[in-house]
């Protein structure tokens, strides 16, 4: 609506333009129009300009409308309860870098609660309030881990917005139905064309989508172009068969064992070994079985290990890497790979009908125990075998569970992931009860949220013990942060007593008491906030 859009009714042709020209050059050089004798030229110019300015402003007309945007697709989900909408606005307002930084004080870290809030809102099936979308997209732009949940919650209007604002382009890439919508599995022609002509990322997404829907179709699609794909693409495509892996994949994988690329061969072998009935698994079982036996001639039955003496062509074809990393012996390296790829059920038969627990408890001759147990761990994780995982984890309170035993913490958390959530939580609770918190962070990370009662109590008790021992709370900041996000909000009441500042004991670090009170305060506040968040969103 700038004033130049009103030329139609400007009288006295271009007199405003003339005034501007005179004003620019100055009345010393140009005479303003309508100058009468006895009047000062600048004043005459200003008078005329004032009249003209008002005339132009009073005569402003609307502009011609541009092409209106295509309306966004309707979001059929119900809208948020008002309290939950306000909470969302509050969480989104807490952007990193806007706060004071430094020490955290007693205030909860709201941004850390956003993932949980989004998960709850998505589970309840609410639609995002449209006016919150810009802040939500900005938050997801900065944090890729938030994107899937944020975009699912944001719904179709976020994709619509992203087409208008290049800063949110990521929403087009990751949203289903974004940039180029993936064809449904039934649209064979479009699938075919996208598979033949699409970009690499689009093809990976297509393959994953079809695999989720119809595993056989995905494999067949891949077979059509397998021979012409580049090695690194073959590796990625092969990796997408990991989901929905089934015995029908075996012939294809078996062929991939002769692939030109070593990485493709290794991946094919790994996938085959996760199929306990595959021919490869049987070959590996035979090889590994021949290396491990029970010696009954000793006083107590003992496992004896005879590692392979060579890595033959057959082993190499089945994915065994012949050259060990520096610092490891060839033979133990080969043994590890054989045991790892052999189906675990072989051992029960091979080692005298024993249960996994009994097998793990057997002594192992000549220092092979570490190597052998570690390989069994990898096998248990790969084959997702809870029985063996349980046996290898052992009792959580056992002394070796806390130390750097045969099984590292990282492996232990992987083993835990194969167990049910209740059993997982109980094991970690037992572990913390015996060994404290210093090693527990990784293990807590695999436990289901909110933490089960015994686990939550174990963590709180351990924190309490750490406080009484006189250390500073920031030595436990990782666990504290996890507790804020994962502890059941119902525990808040029990924690109330810990928020007061205790009298300082002699062996405590100076000032530690008040820092602990502050940390517990934040924990309690965060738990209450989470309870409020959940109740605002209502029951699922």
């Amino acid at each position, binding site marked *: *609506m*700038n*004033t130049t859009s009103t030329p139609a009714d400007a009288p006295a042709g271009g007199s405003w333009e003339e005034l*501007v020209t005179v*004003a*620019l*050059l*100055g*009345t*010393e050089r140009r005479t303003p129009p309508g100058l009468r004798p006895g009047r*000062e030229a*600048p*004043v005459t110019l*200003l008078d005329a*300009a*004032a009249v003209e*300015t*008002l005339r*132009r*402003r*009073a*005569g*402003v*007309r*609307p*502009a*011609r*409308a*541009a*092409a*209106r945007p295509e*309306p*966004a697709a309707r979001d059929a989900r119900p809208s948020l309860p008002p309290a939950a909408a306000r909470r969302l606005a*509050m969480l989104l*307002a807490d952007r990193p870098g*806007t*706060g004071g930084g430094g*020490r955290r*004080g*007693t*205030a*909860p870290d*709201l941004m850390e609660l956003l993932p949980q809030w989004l998960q709850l809102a998505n589970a309840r099936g609410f639609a995002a309030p*449209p*006016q*919150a979308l*810009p802040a939500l997209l900005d938050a997801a732009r900065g944090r890729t881990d938030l994107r899937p949940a944020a975009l699912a919650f944001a719904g179709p*209007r976020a994709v*619509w*917005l992203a087409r*208008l604002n290049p800063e949110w382009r990521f929403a087009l890439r990751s949203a289903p139905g974004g940039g180029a919508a993936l064809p449904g599995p039934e649209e064979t022609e479009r699938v075919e064309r996208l598979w033949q002509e699409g970009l690499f990322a689009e093809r990976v997404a297509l393959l994953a989508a079809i695999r989720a829907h119809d595993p056989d179709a995905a494999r067949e699609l891949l077979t059509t172009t397998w021979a012409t794909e580049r090695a690194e693409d073959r590796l990625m495509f092969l990796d997408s068969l990991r989901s929905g892996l089934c015995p029908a994949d075996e012939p294809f994988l078996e062929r991939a064992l002769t692939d030109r690329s070593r990485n493709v061969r290794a991946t094919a072998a790994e996938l085959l070994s996760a199929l306990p009935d595959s021919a490869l698994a049987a070959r590996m079982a035979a090889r590994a079985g021949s290396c491990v036996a029970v010696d009954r001639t000793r006083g107590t039955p003992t496992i004896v290990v005879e590692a392979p003496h060579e890595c033959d062509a057959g082993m190499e074809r089945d994915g065994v890497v012949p050259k060990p990393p520096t610092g490891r012996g060839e033979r133990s390296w080969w043994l590890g790979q054989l045991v790892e790829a052999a189906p675990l059920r072989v051992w029960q038969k091979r080692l005298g009908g024993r249960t996994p627990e009994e097998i793990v408890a057997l002594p192992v001759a000549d220092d092979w125990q570490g190597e052998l147990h570690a390989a069994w761990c990898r096998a248990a994780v790969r084959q997702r075998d809870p029985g063996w995982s349980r046996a290898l984890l052992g009792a959580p309170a056992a002394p070796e569970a806390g130390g750097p035993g045969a099984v590292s913490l990282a492996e232990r958390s992987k083993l835990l992931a194969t167990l049910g959530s209740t059993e997982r939580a109980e094991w970690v609770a037992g572990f913390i009860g015996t060994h404290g918190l210093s090693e527990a962070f990784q293990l807590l990370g695999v436990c289901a949220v909110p933490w089960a009662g015994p686990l939550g109590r174990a963590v709180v008790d351990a924190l309490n013990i750490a406080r009484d021992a006189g250390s500073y709370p920031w030595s436990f900041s990782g666990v504290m942060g996890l507790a804020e996000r994962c502890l059941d909000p119902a525990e808040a009441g029990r924690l109330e007593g810990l928020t007061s*500042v205790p009298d300082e004991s002699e062996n405590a670090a100076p000032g530690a008491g*008040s820092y602990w*009170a502050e940390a517990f*305060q*934040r924990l*309690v*506040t965060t738990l*209450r906030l989470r309870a*409020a968040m959940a109740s605002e969103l209502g029951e699922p």
Partner: protein
Amino acid sequence: MTQQGVRWTADQVLALAPDAASRKAGSKLGAAGPWSEAGSSDEGTVWGLCKGSGSKPYQTVIDIADSTGPAYKCSCPSRKFPCKHALGLLLLWAGGDGTVPHAQAPDWAEQWIEGRRARSEKRTAGGASGASSAGDPEAARRRAERRAERITAGAAELEQRLADLLRGGLATAEQAGYGMWEETAARMVDAQAPGLAARVRELGAIPSSGPGWPVRLLEECALLHLLDQGWLRRELLPDGLAATVRSRVGLSGSADGRPVRDRWLVLAQYDTSDARLTTRRIWLYGAESGRAALLLSYGAAGRAPELALPVGLAFEAEVSAYPGAGQLRAALGEQFTPPAPATIRPPGTTTLQAVERYGEALRADPWLDSYPVTLDRVVPTPDGDTWQLADTDGDLALPLTPASRSRPDLWRLVALSGGAPVTVFGECGHRGFTPLTAWPEGAGDAVPLC
């Protein structure tokens, strides 16, 4: 504000925050966790102890019964006002989940409240007598005369400067830079004409404001000239216009218009600030009178002005207009009900009617930059690298002002619309339209855009 017993909404509380950081910090403290011994009384006092980083908790007490707005006291060292503890406590109280029960105020809170009330009674008593003693009409008239003389001298000097500028040409203004204008503005401050000083300062920014600056500079010079001339010949003007000239020059009268009682809907609230002052503008719409009113309040830089009215709430109150033709500024008189959520929306117009209203308003006040209007059923529409609000029916549209199209709030408006018609309240002027509040097409609350 007689609001004893009525709990506020969380939005009302958050609107008191002096800045976004306090708002956030306050909302974090609005959970039961850090508070103890919190309570509230029927007399409108809320108190509590907040656990901070030190061993001694902060004592926070708020008096919400005061007619001039809530008063706060907190033992924390923060210079923000109100501090986050006061905000957090009010939020907790507003939440109404029983963590701030009715109770007897502890001594430390009671002392402060009593001291405060005693002082304010003395003040009202003293104020009444002070007004009569300061009312020596002869002295007041002499003071007013002296000030008018000064302003007249300032206006004459300004006329001279404008004439000099146009004699040499605006092209020289670009080279002369900001300094020349700053100096002239300082002369206008000396002349006790803050309205003229502010306009002169704005002139100084125009030469660096991008393409088309000569047009804008000539427009503003001409309007300043018009204001000078209006002042110099104010005796010849009709009363209403003369009052407008006085207020534009910077002689603000008092709001002595007839009080209008109505149910006022809060349409928008936004702050602008410079180095010294935060100015808060609140637009009201009278549900029965259909009138728009502008409340202005001020705070020192970094402090929120005390008056806070959350957008979308309505309340019964009296409002009195300031003098001057076409002036929408008003003062808030007695409030009869606390602000409460309301579903009323102001009636909307088309884009054509909106610019016509602005044109009409210029007749009463030629210095008006924009006029408040509500656009009904418009679609935010991208137009090249700018945005416009286009009528749903017809092919007319109002472009957004350059300032509002670069604000992040624009995206809230676009998101709310999603390509569908929305109702938008804002300021319509010669630079374009500034959206301030929007409503979705169907049912839905007002969404503030500023």
